[in-house]
């Protein structure tokens, strides 16, 4: 694949979230630039068109993490197609609520951070 076919990201976990991801805080990740509309993570089907695919967004990333990096306790990370309520997401150090949440389109070298607020104080 040529360079523009993929997006390279830095993904970090904090607030206890890292425990679900091999107890590793920081992950470097390369994902396809175009992905299936249904966020399937096993690659694009052969009959891919612009209509049945989309640019990789945060929603896709969440599915990708769930299918490929998550090691345990899915329910603490993922719920109803997105992250579980109570998990904060930062896109390049900005609250994802200001960036369109799941529909934010990922760019090369973006830094995405997931922080759990669910652990004891």
């Amino acid at each position, binding site marked *: 694949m040529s360079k523009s076919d993929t997006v390279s990201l830095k993904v970090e976990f904090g607030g206890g979230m890292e425990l679900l991801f091999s107890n590793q805080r920081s992950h470097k990740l390369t994902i396809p630039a175009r992905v299936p509309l249904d966020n399937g993570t096993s690659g694009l089907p052969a009959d891919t068109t612009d209509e049945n695919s989309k640019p990789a967004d945060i929603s896709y990333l969440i599915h990708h993490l769930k299918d490929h990096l998550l090691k345990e306790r899915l329910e603490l990370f993922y719920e109803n197609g997105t992250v579980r309520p109570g998990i904060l997401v*930062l896109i390049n*150090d*900005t*609250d994802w609520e*200001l960036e369109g949440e799941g529909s*934010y389109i990922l760019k090369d070298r973006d830094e995405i951070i997931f*922080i759990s607020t*669910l*652990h*004891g104080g």
Partner: protein
Amino acid sequence: MAPRTCGLCSLAKAILKRPKTGQQICRECFFYVFETEVHNTIIEAGLFKQGDRVAIGASGGKDSTVLAYVMKTLNERYNYGLELFLLSIDEGITGYRDDSLETVKRNQQQYNMPLKILSYDELYGWTMDAIVAKIGKKNNCTFCGVFRRQALDRGAAMLQVDHIVTGHNADDIAETVLMNIMRGDIARLGRCTSICTQGEDTIKRSKPFKYAYEKEIVMYAYFKKLDYFSTECIYSPDAYRGHARTFLKDLEAARPSAVIDIIHSGEAFDVKEEVKATQKSQQICKRCGYMSSNELCKACTLLEGLERGIANAGVTERGMKRLEAEGPPPESLRTIPFFNKPLSQLDGRPALFVEAPS
């Protein structure tokens, strides 16, 4: 998407959407409004006076770490004139509390505050590890909760402080309101939203983060790069609170003001005097001197049960009956050291070692 500018200063890029107001604000304005709101909470409730000695209940977790940092910041910025201490309770949970106490020890250096650690082992002769080994994971939270409450008060008495502040945040309080409604515990419902609780004999306790959202506390810790510890307790969590918590997070996702709205609802309940009166009057535990609603305080009852091998003595009616049926405790029974209240609590004099503000 074009970057949005801060709704307060109109200069910098917004980095956070405030759950309470929906406002979009930049990093510096966020620090300022977060700290100022806590300051306003403290001032409006009149929590402190010059010269107060205040212990921050510190677990190493996000809430108490941010609380210690913000208390230090505000004390210096607004000249509260407080003497601040960190007070940690070591429940004796290997792989959980030992790690989080390391965080508190680093906070002690970072914030330059004296630290007192009081362990269940030295106070009760039992660690939580030993208790769970004896009784299993059912009901262990009862022991831990009762023991922690008393340990905090005793630690505070040792530090001779006037006041304990804890990191309970708006989400915690909203959860408690919901739990009290669902359990029909109307007397507690009436009390649980108070920012400050003080019985006749107890050391004053308050919650400066009463109106601070968990999201903002975590964001504050993140942007300030504060050092905190986050791991769930390895013993079974409070399942009932877990349900209330999930429910609250779902509500918040649909309507971010839900947390503050529930607190306001809790505050607006007017509990009848006769309902409040169902709380038993307080007395002094005949064995350890701690305040109690019975002859023996809950901690002494739980400890006696552990020592005599009737672990549910302080938990269920049946256990209590069994304990009574077995007669009086042996002379050699291990007990909690006698609690001597700080002098200031006895006769209204100011605490020891406090110099008058100049």
